[in-house]
């Protein structure tokens, strides 16, 4: 599946220009992942990030002797992985596929290299990721309010 065809269903991809989309197309490939497959784990190098085509991915944190806790789930159109853009380029969470899924994988190392060489591209990529970070921070703050607890 081409990134162009995903554009309508992904607010993230919709922000990219045609030129940027072509570049990202050349740095990406489609994968299928079964339920419970781990895309990446806490502490590992962040060298590949993903956009969900269909299915669902859970970001989790694990702790010895305890059931993993799900921080957030991501669905069609969502970006899986933010730490690839910022040093030390290591994942903070585990990403586990919860439903059989199809995803687009991106070569994060090459995207970073291209950003270092092309400041216009870097600005756009940082803006897209910063928007995503801001959106997730906003959502996290709302959830921190524990709105549905007993008044």
């Amino acid at each position, binding site marked *: 599946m081409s990134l162009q065809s995903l554009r309508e269903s992904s607010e993230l991809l919709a922000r990219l220009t045609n030129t940027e989309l072509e570049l990202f197309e050349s740095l990406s490939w489609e994968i299928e992942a079964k339920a419970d497959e781990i895309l990446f784990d806490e502490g590992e190098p962040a060298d590949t990030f993903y956009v969900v085509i269909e299915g669902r991915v859970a970001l989790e944190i694990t702790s010895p002797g305890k*059931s993993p806790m799900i921080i*957030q*789930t991501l*669905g069609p159109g969502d970006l899986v992985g933010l730490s690839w853009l910022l040093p030390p380029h290591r994942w903070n969470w585990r990403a586990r596929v919860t*439903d059989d899924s199809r995803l687009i994988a991106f070569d994060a190392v090459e995207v970073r290299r291209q950003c270092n060489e092309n400041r216009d591209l870097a600005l756009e990529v940082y803006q897209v990721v910063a928007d995503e970070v801001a959106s997730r921070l906003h*959502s996290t703050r709302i959830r921190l309010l524990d709105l*549905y607890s*007993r008044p």
Partner: protein
Amino acid sequence: MTTSATTSPALPPEAMLPRPFRVVARREETADTVTLDLKAEDGDSLQFTPGQFTMLYVFGIGEVPLSISGDPGSPDTLMHTVRAVGAVTEAIAALDEGDRVGIRGPYGTGWPMEETEGRDVVVAAGGIGLAPVRPVLLALLAARSRFGAVSLIYGSRTPLDLLYLEELHTWRSRFDVEIEVTVDRADAGWLGDVGVVTSLLPRIAFDPKNTVAVVCGPEIMMKVVAAEMASRGVGGGSIYVSMERNMKCAIGFCGHCQFGPEFICRDGPVFPYERVADRLRVHAL
């Protein structure tokens, strides 16, 4: 200055008189929330519009406003879903089949059902806020062909706090309604979504220019959902919220629920969001 809050019509003498009802069924929804089916002792039905509420009186303990969560097409049975959070609601949650209570109402404005005809409808509920919008969903599904796309986005604290689980599964099995559920926290055993309720909006199909949004939950949740709906192009006049705060007498008499120039019990509890949005930013109101 004359405001609507100062122009109450004369009260009929029966306005404060409860009708006796009996509990005919009780279901535990969650650890602290129960659903009660009630029937009037006089056998008469209680006709209501989705979004309206009654005053339920536990004799000797007190009276509280409760949104009606039953089927408007079956007015012989009055259904309330109640979360035990205070003395009266704890007493209500402890009621059993055969117990007697007093009911006044129904009161208040309903959801804009006529306005939804021919349009897409997005129902957004948070926590116990699913109870007041359940009648909307039942009414929409009962006359499904009269509406455009119909969807429910529902946020809950944990999977254990989800209301009407069987019904959610039933609705999900239909092909003519989208049901999306998320929780704020869950362990890895939960197979659904984790995240804020607005994260579900990109998943559902609706035409922003031809959509009515029905939003019910904590006020902050309603503000966040309304802002997100507006950012997607839904007009403020097509977003409706239910302001269920401080209601006491239900007839615009005591002033307890005054909200700016209006009484929520009489002029609401359902309001177009654009009518109350500014007031929701006033700290002391």
